[in-house]
């Protein structure tokens, strides 16, 4: 598979379209449509800024920490395992709750942009991928993945709840667990 496409799919997976859609709908509930747009689009822009910034800082950051790129992949694998296990254990809902008094811009920043989209797992992963695959490829893949996921969140007005969300989340968790294992493996064998 083309490297950029594969990277885009991995980043999209860590953006977790299902949990992100549910979070966006919860945060935008009982608000005017404009607020929903601000939360979803603003959150995506903020997440992109954070992830692109981390990508650009990857090399000096790893230098400062004195760790090599393969070691960063290993770290990413360990952290990705956290949301993977969470999704295997429980539903992707219940991560955020409505905040009717908060401004939409504030919700776009926190908790939607950070940490729902730009999660710790994705942040560490893009640092590792930037070091291994290159800054340009990682920023490009992040932009494509965020655009696609955001379009999906806009379009998916009624993400599943209850059992549907639980089953969908389990699939996402399983996929993330596989990605985590792949990252650990790549970190160990340094490729």
């Amino acid at each position, binding site marked *: 598979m083309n490297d950029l496409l594969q990277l885009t799919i991995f980043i999209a997976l860590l953006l977790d379209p299902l949990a992100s859609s549910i979070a966006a709908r919860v945060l935008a509930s009982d608000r005017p449509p404009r607020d929903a747009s601000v939360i979803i689009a603003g959150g995506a822009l903020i997440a992109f800024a954070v992830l692109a910034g981390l990508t650009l800082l990857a090399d000096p950051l790893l230098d400062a920490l*004195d*760790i*090599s790129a393969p070691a960063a992949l290993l*770290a990413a694998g360990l*952290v990705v395992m956290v949301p993977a296990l969470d999704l295997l254990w429980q539903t992707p809902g219940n991560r955020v709750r409505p905040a009717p008094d908060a401004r939409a811009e504030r919700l776009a920043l926190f*908790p939607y942009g950070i940490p729902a989209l730009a999660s710790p797992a994705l942040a560490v992963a893009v640092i590792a991928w930037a070091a291994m695959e290159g800054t340009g490829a990682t920023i490009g893949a992040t932009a494509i993945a965020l655009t696609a996921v955001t379009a999906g969140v806009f379009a998916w007005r009624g993400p599943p709840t209850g059992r549907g969300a639980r089953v969908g989340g389990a699939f996402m968790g399983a996929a993330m667990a596989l990605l985590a294992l792949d990252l650990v493996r790549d970190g*160990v*064998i*340094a*490729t």
Partner: protein
Amino acid sequence: MPTRRLWTMLIVSALVLVVGRIVLLGPERCPPPSAAEARAAAAAAAGWLADNQRPDGTYTYAVDRAGRDLGDYNIVRHAGVTLSLYQAARAAADDDLLAAGDRGLAWMVDRLAERDDWVALAQGSDAPLGGSALLLAALAERREMTGDTIYDDTMRGLGRFLASLQKENGDFYTRTNVRTGEPDRVGISPYFAGEALWAIARLQNALPDRLFRTTAEQAARFISTERNDLDFVPVAPLNDHWGSYGFAEMADWPLGDAEADYARSVYGRFQLLIRWEATKDAGAPYSWTHGPERRAAALGTWVEGQGALARLARVDDRLDDLAGLTLDSTRCGAGVLVERQRDSDDVATDGAWFTDDETRMDDQQHAISGLLALAYLLEET
């Protein structure tokens, strides 16, 4: 607003990173040496070997930190040390080191046994494959350095000895009895196949012969496709620097796809070993969680192997994505070696690497080869 569950995920992620940092991902302390620094460290180590050589051509095998001779000897390591002295002599164009290597060579020439059409380095009736392989590699190094062809027949005889010990699957019997000509059909060695591969590949490049080429190709195929399945490889791939040397030597034969794939996997093994070792120098708590320091004879082989793979990656398109990664890893390991080298006024200890209060001659051998590999890589960049 975030729920308690989201906060828990964030806290757990942070804890994973902190614990991972301490246990698995400590700082890799390997200040990258320049080519000149790597050469200087190699020269100091070669000085230890030469300064502590005995008049009969043998080397001081092991000393403690006080410089006390701990005795013991090993003929295979003697051959390896002589090889590294030739490498150091060539790198520095140093006649004194060449002379020291020649004294070590003369000791081995006195122990050559001839039988049928082959020549082997023997101790009594026992001729281990590794000793002859490293003697052959040392002679190839000497030939490249001096242009002297006086040992060409000996090299061919050693090559035929190695070929005579090759099994049908490309592996090798580990030793033979030179009186009976009967190989040991029971003994095994994880590294002898790689040693034989490298030596005979060098021989083929110096003095081409169909037998040598076929032997090397079969050995390379065995190493890349079968050896990992053997009992003495608990975690594949075996971190065999000799095999890496061999693959690099065969780069333009050209190397088969299986060998190229195997070289890629071995790079990963060396990378992990080197970065783990580099973490031990980062101080507490990393030094507690990463185990005791490995001796230079181990770290040096990883640097050697990674250096050989870096050389291979520069000329093999299938591995060109590893060119930078292998160089970085080689440099990291060499940096650890430079940092750990003993600097002393005592010739019995100066330029050596001590682990657990002891240095052994192959600590210097492998460190020299690894450091010089890095110097060449940096100078050719």
